């Protein structure tokens, strides 16, 4: 039995809000009996876009994460909702717009905070994957249709094929430990979860400071060298994909113009700032500025 799944391409979302506005357009003022009652003009949207900004000027990275009802296979809301919520054969989860009336408890039951409360109609409401449109021949939901950068990809596959796809393409779900078994997958979720350590290499010569391109920059965790890169034309280097709150690291920089090293603690992404090379003919004494911890 082929079922609906959604894949979200992390890193392609630019926070344009077309998806959120399309969702409001679909549901405000429209009643879809059996699927969803009208959404409220001023209520919360059922699609949210979370924002994560890492680093400090000039090295910042911003990631946007659209989140919505995951249409879980093991939905926490159904445990609370009883017969007010049903799971369709094609995988979609629908809160009944009549039986759900007054059930504010259903809102609190979702660990993903995907259920909004419609105060005017006293109803819990979610993103219904535009089930009413899919049932009428649409091949994809409105968010996908409105998105300019192809963030969303609705796929209809049987569970085995989808599991295979998730494995091959390293798709992830949110809060997997809850065991809710979401049908919304994220491609490239590392960008939302992982951290970076970066810096900008410079050197002083003849009274002028210049960026150092092509410096060899190594990242150590303890004694283990875990990555190597080269600084670019602005002297910038960046080690990505690091787990947050992962303790101490050391950065070592080597170039014909000199060397430098920094120790740091990684909580959230860390921009070490400008790192001035010490010319190699000088003894590299331990310098207090070499030890950098996370600025709050």
């Amino acid at each position, binding site marked *: 039995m082929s079922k609906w799944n959604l894949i979200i391409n992390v890193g392609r979302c*630019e*926070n*344009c*809000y*077309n998806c*959120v*506005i*399309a969702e*409001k*357009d*679909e549901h*405000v*003022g*429209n009643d879809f009996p059996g699927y969803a009652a009208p959404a*409220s*003009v*001023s*209520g*919360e*949207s059922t699609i*949210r*876009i979370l*924002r994560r*900004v890492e*680093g*400090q*000027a*000039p*090295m*910042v*990275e*911003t990631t946007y994460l659209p989140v919505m009802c995951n249409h879980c296979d093991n939905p926490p809301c159904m445990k609370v909702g009883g017969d007010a919520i049903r799971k369709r054969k094609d995988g979609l989860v629908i809160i009944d717009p009549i039986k759900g009336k007054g059930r504010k408890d259903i809102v609190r039951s979702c660990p993903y905070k995907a259920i909004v409360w419609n*105060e*005017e109609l006293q109803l819990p409401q979610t993103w219904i994957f535009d089930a009413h449109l899919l049932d*009428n021949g649409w091949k994809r939901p*409105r968010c996908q*249709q*409105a998105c*300019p*950068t192809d963030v969303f990809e609705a796929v209809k596959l049987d569970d085995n094929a989808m599991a295979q796809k998730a494995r091959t393409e390293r798709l992830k779900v949110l809060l997997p430990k809850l065991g809710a078994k979401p049908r919304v997958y994220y491609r490239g979720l590392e960008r939302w979860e992982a951290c970076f350590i970066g810096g900008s290499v*410079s050197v002083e010569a003849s009274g*002028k*400071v*210049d*960026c150092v*391109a092509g410096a060899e920059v190594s990242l150590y965790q303890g004694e283990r060298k875990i990555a190597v890169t080269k600084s670019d*034309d*602005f*002297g*910038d280097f960046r080690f990505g994909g690091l787990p947050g709150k992962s303790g101490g690291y050391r950065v070592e920089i080597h170039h014909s113009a000199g060397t430098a090293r920094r120790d740091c603690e990684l909580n959230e992404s860390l921009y070490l700032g*400008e790192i001035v090379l010490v010319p190699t003919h000088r003894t590299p004494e331990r310098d207090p500025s070499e030890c950098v911890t996370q600025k709050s």
Partner: protein
Amino acid sequence: MKKIVLRTILFALPRVLNLTAWKHPDFRRRLKQKNCTAFIGLLDGSIGLTLEINGGKVRSRNANSVEPDVSLLFRDLPTALKFLMPNPDQGDIIHAAKNFKVITKGPDPLVVWFMQTLNLSQTVGVSMGTPMAEGTRRFTTCTNGGPLFVYVKEGRILRVTPLEFDADDAQGWEIRARGKTFRPQRRALVAPHAMTLKSVVYSDKRILHPMKRVDYDPDGDRNPQNRGKSGYVRISWDEALDIVAKEINRQKRVHGPGAITFPMSSHHQWGNVGYYLSALTRFANLIGFTRVAANPDSWEGWYWGAMHHFGNSMRIGVPAGYGGVEDCLKEAELIVFWSCDPESTNGAYAGFEGTQRRLWAKELGIEFVHIDPHNNPTAQLLGGRWIPVRPQTDAALATAIMYVWAVEGLYDKDYVAGRTTGFEEWKAYLLGQTDGIAKTPEWQEAETGVPAKDVRALARKWGNRKVYLAAGMTGAGFGGAGRGATGQQWARCMIMMMAMQGWGKPGVNFGCLQLGTPVDLHFYFPGYADGGISGDLMWTGNAVSNYQRMPHILTMNPVKQMVPRQQLPDAIINGHASGYLWDGISQEAQFAPFTYPMPGYSPIHMIYRYGGSAFSTVTKSGRWIDAYRHPSIEFVVNQSIWMEGEAQFADIILPACSSLERWDIGEWSNSGGYAHHGFGGVNHRVVTLQHKSIEPLGESRSDYDIFTGILERLGLGALFTEGGSELDWVKRVFDGSDLPNHISWSEFCRKGYYVVPPERPDFSQPVDMRWFAEGRQKDLPEPHPLPSQFAEGFGKGVQTPSGKIEFVPEILRRHTADNPDRPALNRYIPSWEGLGTTTLAGKYPLQMIATHSRYSFHTSSDGKNSAVNHVRDHRARIAGHDFWLLRINAVDANKRGIAHRDLVKVYNDRGTVICAADISPLVVPGVVKSHEASAEFKMVDIGGEIVEIGGCMNILTPDRPQTRGTSSMSPNSCLVQIEKWQGAEEFKLSRADTGIAHE
């Protein structure tokens, strides 16, 4: 023979009309609206028909037995036939009207009604829209953010979606670059504000009835001092239109021409017929008015400065951008975005069409650098090196880059020698030979906050490489950096940088893939600035093509008096103002001042305002409160769709309807006029019929119908309408374009849009300035500069006295020698409101930039409980009110005890606005970033302090022009202080936090 034809046509007419009524309920309803008799025939009465319309039925009457209410009289037989035969030639009809070969008699409203009814009989039979499943009908429209499908069921809009092409629509273009083939998606990538359309149409802030201010009595006390304070009472359309028409006549009689002014906003909802440069201009010309001379707001810096280096005055001083997409994808190594954020500003009207193309560039490995005080959405999406520059110091950064190029030889010496003049003088300035200060990267560091090392690195990465400079909104001009004290200095530097790098050579040009798609540039469809139905030949692009392709009766405003837009409130309060013209006809037009009032004309006493955005789009906009309340202003009409902004300051409010409630026609991203070939921003040229999808809400009416109602009372209805309704004009626009060669009217009405096939692959679009770099004749398809503006021969060289790019413009040498603000030799002069103005900066230490909003097109989608209120990147809901955002760095926030989403007071000597804090590293310390164009204007008294809570940041901006000798705006030279709002608790207590109610 011809007599027989005419007799036959007239004989059949009553039957034709009755048959049409029998078939079409809309026409039946129309005929029932009025009873009248009409004579149609020759002036001498020898051939004619008297029609009687009564109770919805049409019959012929004996000509002698009745005096007709209305007559349509033709001087001769050929003229009559030209009018009455099928498919009349509009040129013949207009000529006949202008030369009195056809005349109408009768009360103007009845003449208009009768002629529109005859026209309706021709159009009512055409089926509009495409029927879909379950009783839904699909219509089309276009917006400032792109074209949409509009689905209607049972007279209500169900949804709007981005337009998508089907298999029958033309195939698009493809570009091959570096071993890859790129084809654009077959759907319209529209902006978020386009998607809000249904929500703004059904907004609970719609004005549904005409209204009169309770303490305004046109025959007694007018109480101007209460504007903005008093409430309104509902009145009938007749009463409202009577008051307006009577006031127009009284103004002319008592004060004379010039007493009435129409402050027009820069934009409108999309559509060639209803646009302010179309219907509103036609209406205003028939009344006579003091023109509000707009400053070149989009082009500041380029118009006053850059154009003197290279020309393009008809483009208001910005580059053209032809061929930019293919050239950049094939050749460029790096794109430097400078005050350029297309993910927010969409190249104005092109939605996200350019986004797709920039992602191709990323795929090809083209690198990006972003110079902006804000790590803007474009930088966030594309990545690349961010260079945070302090607001309004860009010219210092640019100068230092050019210094590095000069001393390290990183510039195109052949190009400079052969294609430019004045480089030696510029180089001497860079090296410090002129003023003893070498413009090194170290020199600029204290001004800009950009480390010297980064400036050198950028200069070396850029110099003598194939780099696209993306300066301003389209990458080829505009930009927030141009709208401040140093705007001209920056724009001038952009031209000089490109001149040093060989502008026009492969991979060396302005742009960021936002302009220059390989669409067919030669398919004719007019843009919104091309004249529309205005009849105006002086102040629109009408004379170029539209006036010939769509013949219509010309209109002229006989009032020569003008008032500069940014100084309009001062002109009212102080009684005088002076300014400098925005006029692209030449580079010289900007030097002569004009003054208000002008001898021979009355000062302004009546304001007819369309829309209400001045509070958040004009600098130091608090001035407007006093202007509206000034005793010299005897009457204020506001014609608006929503109750917001300035509408609350009117005496009479006329409810206009949205574009979905009336007929129009428009092409995506086609402004025409001053931005020739603007559709080079979209991947496919799409012309849409903008269907009237639903009936107007409440008693609202289309602008066109409101204007007709007023003009009918002045006997001008027939002249304004030419006997046609909006749909008749839409058909005339259609007929006058190239569309009929490709699609029939009935098919266009059914389907709603036409996709123009791209240019033939073997006719590749010429690249902007390639001809100049190669020393050839100009080969760009643009009708400028004017023939007299070439230095030596037609098509040779650029529009400068030498024909070359001038590092030290001769035109400035000639005309601004006595103006130290506008030196011929460009130099960095720090902002008159910046960190260098230490006394002011001591009180207000933060630099604020308020740029274009992403989620609204100016005010059109903001506020009014639209879907945009849900956008957390736009407003924050706190205590049930949607506060405007202010983006702050954590360092500045922590110093002041401000947390994320706290309410903050933003203030300076000009006013106080309350915003919600958005704290992130996306702005650097010392800079706060917000947006302009809040639709809501709301002053409240909290704790004895009057603050503005709608989000009108322009209350805080200076009204000073960039430099002496210009009428230019400088909102981005603005110092403010912020603090955590002490009134927040009282505000929250004063509001029930229901999460539902809005004022």
